[in-house]
């Protein structure tokens, strides 16, 4: 089985709950780096989100800074009013214009992660309105990564997952817990040991 080098997760409306459920369903600590892009208001309290995530899923969630290193066991959360881009071993931030009305945008994160991590990337798209993330899912697939999307039926808002499914570039769907189980299976090394 191909190894996973990075997991990128994106969500919008209802995303905090869905992310918590997903992150609770994978090993703590995560054996690979993880980036999380949640649509959030410009004035959103940066520190609060990371704190809430830590409490609800036990993962080490940290607000990303410019050039924060990608480390196993750390969930880097995109800060409000910046795009998060994945580079070689670090994340970079950008104040370019909103994409799909969003900053941070999931498309921007997924696209850069696909470029950098190609076949080693797993992208997970959860609940939300709009269509941010659909192009990103397509980009991930085009570069040989794997794509998991929340089943619109189980999502608080099904637009975003639905748009992604319409691209035809989705490998699997499920509830956040089911996606977490799929992800966990991928994170087990070929030798059958965790990590």
């Amino acid at each position: 089985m191909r190894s996973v080098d990075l997991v990128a997760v994106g969500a919008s409306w209802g995303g905090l709950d869905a992310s918590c459920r997903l992150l609770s369903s994978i090993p703590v600590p995560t054996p690979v780096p993880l980036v999380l892009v949640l649509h959030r208001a410009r004035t959103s309290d940066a520190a609060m989100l990371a704190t809430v995530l830590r409490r609800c899923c036990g993962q080490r969630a940290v607000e990303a800074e410019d050039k924060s290193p990608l480390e196993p066991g750390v969930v880097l959360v995109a800060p409000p009013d910046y795009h998060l881009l994945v580079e070689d071993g670090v994340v970079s931030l950008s104040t370019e214009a909103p994409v799909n009305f969003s900053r941070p945008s999931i498309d921007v994160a997924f696209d850069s992660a696909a470029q950098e991590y190609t076949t080693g990337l797993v992208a997970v798209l959860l609940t939300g309105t709009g269509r941010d993330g659909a192009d990103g899912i397509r980009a991930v697939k085009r570069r040989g990564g794997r794509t998991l999307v929340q089943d619109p039926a189980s999502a608080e808002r099904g637009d975003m997952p639905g748009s992604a499914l319409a691209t035809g570039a989705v490998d699997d769907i499920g509830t956040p817990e089911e996606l977490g189980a799929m992800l966990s299976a991928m994170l087990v090394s070929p030798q059958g040991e965790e990590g």
Partner: protein
Amino acid sequence: MPGDRQDREELEISLLLEGVYRHYGFDFRQYARASIRRRLWRRTYAEGLSTITGLLDRVLHDEEAMQRLLLDLSINVTSMFRDPTFFAAFRTKVVPYLRTFPFLRIWNAGCSTGEETYSLAIVLHEVGLLERTRIYATDINEAVLRSAADGVFPLAKMKEFTENYLAAGGTRSFSEYYVSAYDRAQLNRSLAENVVFAQHNLVSDRSFNEFHVIVCRNVMIYFDRALQDQVHGLFLDSLVPLGVLALGHKETVRHTAHAERYETVDEVERIYRRVR
């Protein structure tokens, strides 16, 4: 292949950046790759082209196309009093230090279209320090500087600017600072009287003065780490002892090569003081 991420697109980007550097002298080779890539593709499509190499062909042979690319690479979407809490902290924690000087020099590095520059001018005006200050607002792009010097912004942005201004501790009515005509707002010319807009390239140009404050926010996020260290060296050379460096909300001097030369004035707002 694991560890080998060079592919044709990466090669084309490297060739374009090398070509721009050798022909025009603008060095974007150490900019953070992910956002450069996005901007190059946007420019490529805007020019009606389909490859990065096509873009290289065009900019090498057409100076106006290079100007368009330069604009794309240097313009950032920003707002007056962006991060109002930063400006509020500037008032309470930096202004008292500034009051001790009879004459002030402030460097706003990477001023882009001037929103940050005018925000600083307004704060200094309200605390009675603008008259004794010279603000040097620099950017790599002459066209953008001309725009900044004009001080004209879309009227539609004034609502957001006003909200930010108030959240930043503004003591007046923001509408006092501009006049509107049609769909544009002209900032009071008096705000620009103490501002020098000048071209300066953070990558290649050297220090040109010593400053009491350097404000460079959300500019270095577009540089890779090596270039960031280089520019931090430039800033250190350009700060008076105990001078203040102000960075963007998600930037820090910690983990840079010169971290131990600074103490923290406000960690949350990314304001630092040179102590060594």
